[in-house]
């Protein structure tokens, strides 16, 4: 270990450095990762945001040492991951999108086994497991097999296994998918506690834009295997701050002859009777005012006017998919 990797480091240091990473899967000519560059600093909560198929999970599997890039370099805490997965396993606690290996184990044993496999002695692992189950309120289901829990509880048990035994980096692939709001809060609290107390660096995958805005220090937006933007959520949103999203829900097909409807239609993302249009704030107010009169008012069932989200940033930057979660 070099001196730079001593017990503690300054937050300004990049602990993860990804340069020119390309990854293609056999039988699929499209590149899952197509020249990814990014760096993550110590103690940071860094997000990978993008629609399904953007290459987030492929990148994360490479960061976890589970697969190697076709070309490019990944440096983790000063170590080149080309050396194999053993380096990543020493630094990273990885939560996959699914953990079928744990399905038949009781929750307590799943967490304890993971802690032991991360190097804790049996007694330490047992004590750490008890603390972790209390922290995530998993005590009542501790004796039940992971695979027989509800989707949310199952995910929570897998999060507990990922948090078992300290690692300097948490690599979490959609950690809160399927969780109810209470469980979601307890997961974020547990992650934040580790960052505050131990300076743990967190890299997480999400396609939930609202969550991303709330929890991330910085975010890289991925589209078709490339990073199309990387900054703080606030600065990214500032790029499209003049825009708002006008969502319209129609009772019936809107009158096509109406000039406002005719003007909005080409710019709208249409899903049945739901229209979603990004406009400058003044133009949106004006359009809404016109829609609130005459024949269009009869056809209009509901509307919302919202400020820009990271999804709008994604679309403004040329993102072509529109399937990111907004709840």
């Amino acid at each position, binding site marked *: *270990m070099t001196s730079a*990797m*001593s*017990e*503690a*480091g*300054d*937050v*300004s240091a990049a*602990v993860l450095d990804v340069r020119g990473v390309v990854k293609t899967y056999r039988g699929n000519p499209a590149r899952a990762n197509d020249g990814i560059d990014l760096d993550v*600093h*110590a*103690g*940071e909560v860094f997000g990978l945001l993008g629609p399904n198929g953007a290459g987030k999970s492929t990148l994360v*599997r490479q960061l*976890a*040492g*589970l*697969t*190697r890039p076709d070309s490019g370099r990944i440096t983790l*805490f000063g170590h080149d991951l080309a050396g194999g*997965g*053993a380096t*990543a*396993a*020493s*630094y*990273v*606690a*990885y939560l*996959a999108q*699914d953990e*079928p*290996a744990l399905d*038949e*184990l009781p929750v307590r*044993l*799943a967490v304890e*086994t*993971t802690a*032991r*496999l*991360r*190097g*804790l002695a*049996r007694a330490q*692992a047992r004590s750490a497991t008890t603390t972790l189950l209390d922290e995530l309120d998993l005590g009542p289901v501790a004796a039940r097999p992971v695979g027989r829990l509800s989707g949310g509880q199952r995910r929570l048990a897998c999060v507990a296994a990922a948090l078992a*035994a*300290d*690692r*300097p980096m948490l690599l979490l692939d959609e950690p809160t998918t399927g969780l109810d709001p209470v469980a979601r809060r307890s997961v974020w609290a547990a992650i*934040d506690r580790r*960052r*505050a107390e*131990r*300076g*743990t660096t967190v890299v997480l995958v999400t396609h939930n834009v609202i969550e991303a805005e709330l*929890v*991330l*220090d910085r975010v890289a937006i991925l589209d078709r295997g490339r990073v199309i933007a990387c900054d703080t959520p606030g600065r990214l949103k500032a790029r499209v701050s003049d825009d708002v999203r006008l969502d319209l829900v129609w009772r019936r097909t809107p009158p096509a002859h109406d000039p406002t409807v005719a003007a909005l239609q080409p710019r709208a993302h249409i899903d049945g009777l739901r229209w979603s249009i990004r406009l400058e704030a003044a133009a949106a107010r004006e359009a809404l005012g016109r829609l609130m009169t005459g024949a269009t008012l009869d056809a209009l069932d509901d509307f919302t006017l919202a400020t820009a989200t990271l999804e709008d940033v994604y679309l403004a930057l040329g993102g072509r998919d529109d399937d990111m979660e907004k709840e």
Partner: protein
Amino acid sequence: MSGTATASTRATTAPGARPGAVAAFAAVYAGQLARAKVARGPLLFVASLQSLGILLLLRGVVHNDPPRTTSAIVAGSTVLVVAFVALNLLAQRFGALKANRALDYYGALPVSAAPVVLGTAASYATFTIPGALLTCVVGVAMYGLSFAQVWLVVPVVIASGIALSGLGAAIGLLAPRAEFATVLGQLAMTAVLFLGVIPPTHLPGAARVAREVVPSMTAVDVLAAGLRGTPSWWGVGWRLAVTVAWGLLGLVLASRAFRRACAR
């Protein structure tokens, strides 16, 4: 998150602990044992029942045969319990782990392949001891053999468990699809059944040659000799050592296959 990281924050950058091979084996073994307790009871019952059924079936066709024949039948049926679990179930288990990407869990942990394969195999083999003992005792009583060396069933089950579970794990990990793993495991178990249960003197020439390369057959011979009441202890030791050596070879193969499957 509550606040962006500030320059005053000190971040942990030291690598986490790694378990030793023995600790990793113990953790995997304990976890898989608990898992097997829940899921494998009925299958182990079937494994024992299968062997008891074969004993009963052959009792109907074997009349006034010498102990060399009957001891081979009982020893082969006993080791068949191990083969069912080590080849059939373990090949299925590893085939399924590979197919649904469950190996990622182990691949992202700081453990090498050998303790994971060995721990899983050992947990499966542990469950075969009661069934193998029951089969052996019933067979000895049924065929009028000597009870004096029935204890040999314990080292025989352990040695053949090691020998066959490495092979079973390798089959599961090397098969391109989970369905193939199941079929190959089943075929391997069938081979152990025929070559183990039918006394070597009754086998045709080609099958006798094949019998020599099936890892568990030396263990079958050890138990058969013990059930006749006059084993050569040097022979017992040597044959069990050969069985374990086969097993180590299988485990090395399985460990390599595991690493390969993890690094897909």
